[in-house]
């Protein structure tokens, strides 16, 4: 391991000290942040009458940021409450249609009447009970209800229904309420991050292997003691870390904006916004989504490094980055599992299962497995080609 980390730092510097890469990252981060914010400011900056919970009223001029802060706080006013009968009863008592449709309805009218903007998602359920809510917005029962309404939707076998029902036994009922507008926005926007990820990884890593040759330094590098086997390992490590870093930057661009504008409660069950039977919380979904994104980035990065190494051409590596994007865009068929569809939420939905060796695997497991195997395969192939190219002689 002698000098591994010293060389690693130099390789990272060679990858990252490029204005083109930072310019692209800044541009895409801005784009993703813009997509993650509310489409239109439903409450623009201006003068509002603010009614405190005790009924007292004040008139204040609110800036753009203050409006969002108040809106965010209001949205989370009911967070952590069990969605039991008393919760729905309280909603029925505090919310009423005329208030919401009044012409002068604005931010104060729900902040102060103690009715946060959950009406956006809950007003349709004012007459519901916890059980009825679950039928409409939950796991297997909601799935079956949807299927009854739309016969072509879904086609689970009895075995698959049993699998999901068993998994759902670990979901805590009644649900605990959290405002999930932020997570909903995140789930919609992370799709764009996934779509753009291979291109950014391509720009990031296409120069890693061909650069020494392009700069006419391969002779000096390969004649050095560690210029072969160890340098190959260092380059692969730097490439892998950089690929994960790109995934992290794009992921954080989306998550950061959603956190700022909407707030995200990590403890919320994902059933509040998905038809899912996974007994996981928003925090766990975020971790799993990042894991999948990082693996996808590693897979794309591995492909880019492999092609650029074999061709000794950064343009070829960059072109290889288009392959995952093209698969996403042109692979037709409703059952095709492309990376894009995984990130559209397929990983966490109730869906068909893959049967291997008598065991059933859901899409989340299949996705993580396929991405891991693909990433490892490309990285191993890179190592073998590097060895072939440098160690065994050219």
């Amino acid at each position, binding site marked *: 391991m002698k000098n591994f980390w010293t060389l690693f730092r130099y390789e990272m510097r060679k990858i990252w*000290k490029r204005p083109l890469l930072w310019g692209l990252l800044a541009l895409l981060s801005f784009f993703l942040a813009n997509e993650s914010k509310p489409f239109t400011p439903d409450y623009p900056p201006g003068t509002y009458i603010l009614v405190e919970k005790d009924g007292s009223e004040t008139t204040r001029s609110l800036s753009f940021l203050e409006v969002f802060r108040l809106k965010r706080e209001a949205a989370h006013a009911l967070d952590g409450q069990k969605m039991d009968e008393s919760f729905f009863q309280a909603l029925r008592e505090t919310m009423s249609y005329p208030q919401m449709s009044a012409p002068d309805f604005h931010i104060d009218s729900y902040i102060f009447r103690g009715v946060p903007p959950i009406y956006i998602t809950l007003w349709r359920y004012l007459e519901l009970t916890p059980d009825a809510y679950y039928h409409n917005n939950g796991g297997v029962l909601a799935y079956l209800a949807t299927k009854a309404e739309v016969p072509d939707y879904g086609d689970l076998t009895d075995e698959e229904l049993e699998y999901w029902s068993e998994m759902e036994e670990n979901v805590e009922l009644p649900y605990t309420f959290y405002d999930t507008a932020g997570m909903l926005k995140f789930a919609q926007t992370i799709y764009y991050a996934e779509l753009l990820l291979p291109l950014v990884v391509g720009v990031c890593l296409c120069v890693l292997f061909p650069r020494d040759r392009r700069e006419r330094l391969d002779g000096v590098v390969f004649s050095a003691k560690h210029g072969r086997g160890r340098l190959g390992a260092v380059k692969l490590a730097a490439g892998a870390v950089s690929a994960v870093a790109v995934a992290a930057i794009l992921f954080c661009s989306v998550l950061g904006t959603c956190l700022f504008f909407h707030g995200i409660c990590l403890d919320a069950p994902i059933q509040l916004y998905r038809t899912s039977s996974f007994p996981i919380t928003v925090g766990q979904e975020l971790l799993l989504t990042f894991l999948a994104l990082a693996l996808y980035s590693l897979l794309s990065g591995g492909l880019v490094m492999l092609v650029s190494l074999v061709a000794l051409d950064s343009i070829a590596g960059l072109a290889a980055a288009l392959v995952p994007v093209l698969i996403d865009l042109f692979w037709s068929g409703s059952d095709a599992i492309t990376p894009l569809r995984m990130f559209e939420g397929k990983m966490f939905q109730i869906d068909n299962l893959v049967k291997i060796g008598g065991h059933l695997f859901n899409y989340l497991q299949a996705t993580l497995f396929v991405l891991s195997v693909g990433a490892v395969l490309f990285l191993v192939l890179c190592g073998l080609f590097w060895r072939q190219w440098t160690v065994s002689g050219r």
Partner: protein
Amino acid sequence: MELTVLNLSKHYKDKKAVDGVSLRLTEGINGLLGANGAGKTTLMRILCGILKPTAGSVALDGVDVFSEDYRAVLGYLPQDFGYYPDFTGLDFLLYLAALKGLSRPHAKRKSVELLELVGLADVGKKKIKTYSGGMRQRLGIAQALLNDPRLLIVDEPTAGLDPKERVRFRNLLADLGKDTIVLLSTHIVSDVEHIADHMLMMSEGHIILDEPWDKNRTDLEQLYLEEFGGEDE
């Protein structure tokens, strides 16, 4: 210490760049003269383990050319080498020192020492892209010496150097040659005439002259013209 080259050949589709070369080189300056296209650079790249020969073997005191131990004692200055534009001269040396296996403190000490030696101490912290051609060549010479090589292979090392620098570099090589095998490839007779201990001449992939050289001899140019007079310089 002996560099042994046995029946070395490198064949491309329609050309024999190196053809059946056998050599035994010991400490001292070994001049390698030859016209452009004679196969000097190909031979040197094979001796550095960068090119795989079609046939033959290279070993330094029995250590194979493709081993890490061989590269640990090898210094190489290619004829045409580049640089990382956003690296400073010092960064460049520190990076290559790490590649050559030097510890950080040793690398730093050695890099500073070599920058001083090649007259780049005052610009060591400036980016290489601001260097002139001669300064870059001197930086290349410095990197080749980072690991105190026992086998130093330099390909056209004086290209781009002004006359004063060439003299200084020749003296440096002569000094290194006392306990190092130096293989100096050039097509400039004056670069090797007065410092070489052993002279090699190469033509069309073959070694056509391999003999000890008397530094006091003054007929190298004549000899060179006799051997290569008809070849394109």
